[in-house]
């Protein structure tokens, strides 16, 4: 098979893509196993949630355990869970009786709108600001951008939340404090969520541009008489923005983590808040399902980012 691939570079590339997909699937499987096993390490199990152990008889507990399938060996339990997953059954909330799937459907929209808003904010601002700061290096604009992004990177999001809520909601009354219901409720959470990643992304874009601006190919092009604007926009820019593609995946991961906190603070009814709530109430099926889902989002984002990078950088295609 290796010889066949020597002769056909396209086949080699397809093979690499397939391998990458299979690898991601493996990671997803491991993610599910870890979540599954991990949550089962919790002392006690859900039976203690449903039936008060001090009053229920051992037979009742055993019966319930059997009903829920908890007396099976763990790998059987996992396989059953996996089978359920593939059929679209993510389990049941033992507190509210909703299916996890419906939870995802309802809360998912909120999380997606929040995360996407933040994501767009981040890249729509970081790229122009970072580039401007780099191109006008040493100027007042550069100093301002660097200073502000530094502050944004340094401010923990919950502190920012506290400050903004106090200023804009409590004092000025322009925006609601928390909850959901209108676009106004989205503003503060999105700002808080985006702030620190935005600071980081801006700095990254700036540094990346400066690295490329000093590259030898830029000088070689000047030697041939290419104009600065061609060199800048056709060459330096493209090379400088390559790392931003990888950054996209990193930011997805960051955002997934931060939404947990931000949604809780602002009582934004998204997946993050549901997850935190489920952990606090030991509603472990929901916790498990949401954990796997969120981790899967990160894995998929990494996968997409790696494919985008392949498309953008010819060097990677032939590795």
């Amino acid at each position, binding site marked *: 098979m290796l010889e066949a691939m020597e002769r056909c570079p396209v086949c080699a590339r397809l093979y690499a893509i397939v391998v990458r997909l299979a690898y991601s699937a493996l*990671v997803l499987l*491991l*993610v599910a196993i*870890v*979540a599954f096993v991990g949550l089962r*390490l*919790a002392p006690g199990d859900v039976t203690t949630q449903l039936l008060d152990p001090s009053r229920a008889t051992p037979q009742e507990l055993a019966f319930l355990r059997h009903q829920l399938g908890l007396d099976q060996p763990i790998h059987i339990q996992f396989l059953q869970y996996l089978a359920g997953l593939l059929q679209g059954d993510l389990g049941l909330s033992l507190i509210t009786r909703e299916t996890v799937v419906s939870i995802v459907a309802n809360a998912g929209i909120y999380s997606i709108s929040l995360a996407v808003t933040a994501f767009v904010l981040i890249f729509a601002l970081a790229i122009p600001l970072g580039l401007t700061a780099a191109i006008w290096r040493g100027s007042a604009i550069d100093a301002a951008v660097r200073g502000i992004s530094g502050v944004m*990177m*340094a401010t*923990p*999001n*919950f*502190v920012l939340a*506290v*400050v903004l809520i*106090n200023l804009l909601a*409590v004092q000025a009354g322009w925006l609601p404090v928390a909850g959901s219901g209108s676009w106004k409720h989205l503003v503060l959470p999105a700002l808080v969520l985006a702030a*620190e*990643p935005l600071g*980081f992304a801006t700095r*990254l874009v700036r540094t990346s541009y*400066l690295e490329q601006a*000093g590259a*030898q*190919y830029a*000088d*070689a*092009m*000047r*030697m*041939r*008489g*290419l*104009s600065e604007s061609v060199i800048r926009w056709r*060459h330096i820019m*493209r*090379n400088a923005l390559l*790392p931003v593609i*990888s*950054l996209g995946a*990193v930011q997805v*991961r960051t955002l997934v*983590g*931060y939404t*947990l*906190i931000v949604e809780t*603070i602002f009582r934004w009814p998204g997946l993050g808040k549901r*997850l*935190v709530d489920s952990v*606090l109430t030991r509603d*472990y099926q929901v*916790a498990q399902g949401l954990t796997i889902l*969120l*981790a899967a989002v*990160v*894995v998929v984002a*990494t996968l997409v980012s790696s494919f985008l990078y392949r498309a953008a950088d*010819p*060097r990677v295609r*032939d590795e």
Partner: protein
Amino acid sequence: MTATIDFDAPASPSASVAADGSLRRIVRGVPWPLLAAVALFFVAGAIGLVFLVAPDLKPLVFKQSLMRAFSAPLSRGGFLGADQLGRPLEWRLLAGLGISLGAAAAVTLIASVLGLAMGLLGGFFGRTADRLVTVVIDLTWAYPTILLAVVIAGILGPGVWTVIWALGLTLWAALARIVRAQVLVLREQDFVLAAQALGYSRFYIATRHLIPNLMPIVILMATLFVALTIIAEAGLSFIGLGAQSPTPSLGKTLAEGFSFASSSIWPLVFGALTMISLVIVLNAFGDRVRDILDPKGRVPLPGRRLRDAARRAEAALPARAVDRDAVIAVDDVSVAIHGRRGATTAVSDLSLTLRPGQTLGIVGESGSGKSLSARAITGLLPEGLSLSGGRVFWDGVDIAGLPAEKLRDRRGRFVAMVFQDARASLDPLYTIGEQVSESLAAHFPGPRRSFRPKVLEMLARVGLSDPEIFYDRYPHQLSGGQLQRAALAGVLVLEPRVLIADEPTTGLDATTQKKIVALVKALQREMNMSVIWISHDLDLVGEIADEIVVAYAGQPVEIGTVEEVLKRPAHPYTLGLLESRPQATMAPKSPLRSVGGTVPDPGDWPPACRFAPRCRRALAICGTTPPPMELFDEGSGRRLRCYNPEPGAAEAGA
């Protein structure tokens, strides 16, 4: 939270590794107020922890006296006031600080040790280990830190230890990835191979050789971990998953302050102040540490434009008659490097002329300034360098007087340059054809596509047979020799009057070298170009050039025809270079003549003759008065910078 770790940043193999231990460098490099601030926080935290643990002092932290709830700062003897349960705010914050910093230290320790070990395992102990480590890293990466913290909180219950485990178990992966990449580079270094050749085990090499060289990156990441933990712990405590009552925590104080803000803002204000100042100090410290340990090529003050510097120098120079027939004339040029501590001269006293159709060779070793001289001739110096004296004339016109746009236009059409590293001269994201077309598009009207026939013709002329195929290839798909041909195509397609080739064949195989040299010679004849060829190889230049400039320590020391310089060298350095090469006439394995000593760096040049300390023929005057460049042979125009030239150099019968 501070800097989410940039996972995909490639390790910089060129990260400078000074011999001093990293810690020593940090202590010396960070400004002392910053060091003091960091130390202050840690001491305060330690004090806080002491109060937390010591039994007699516990009430200070835990006293719950509602009588004193929400007292204002400085009232009733309290310093910062009291929180909603009457606990003195200052002790509460100190203890919280202690908990935060303690957690940060624990996490940093766990993550650093684990990250270092896993990175080493993957990078140095075989492919199976590597695959395993990679899978585990990717698996860990799938769980955002906060997510894992929440999940572990679900398992172990909320608390500070939960946060510590959660963070430790996720952060190590970032370090492991970077360590692994760095190890892959390190293990190809000769000193590692040498230790292996001496029979030392992999474990020994990992601990004695690899780890010390990995410390900068570990410390760098540790600074990030500390800041991250502080914030993560505070954030989780804020939403109830971190420190649980009665354990204090900065996050909890902030949360409580927030909920009770309507009753008293002091807990909120002081809590926020503590938090923010801690983070700012840690970040500033981390930035400084990163700068010290991994300076990413700090670019010095932007080099002044050629024009301005030259105008200033012009006023000082008397107008000198310059050969107007010359295609290029360089008059007493010097180039300076602008560093932190002022300007250092890298090239001085450079004067030469290039006639139409002539090939001039500039020969020198490292530190001779030959590359910078070439760049000065093109009027394009790297950032941080500038022309500190002299003038450069293109076709009789002083380029310092040309407006930038005119200069740009002339560049490429009049003079063009190819570099030693052809791969670095091309943009990796565009095909060869696209880039060669760009040269034409920069000077002639029309869409890039319209230049395709000319480009194909040029690619064929430089020896890239099957130009159609090469047109669509990317730089990474070409070999070193092919890349240099492509670079030549990109430059020669403009049919420049002058080609400057800076070591274009260094690093290429001898057989490839010969072909490139032949190619340049042929194209030179066809296009009636002048060529300046720069090299460290006297023999090579002897094959190509008509006239040779020998450069030593930033200065030309001998200028003459190839015949004169190679057959009858006058300068002792030239003779030394020639004699260092093994000759066919020598008996095999006989000792070679050598030039003792080393080339001095810019800034360390001897005051008078720069070669004097190494010269066999040095006289007293060579150490006191700099030798001027003088005419050595009236007839041929040969010039020499030496008080005591080699005998036998003069023309017999001159």
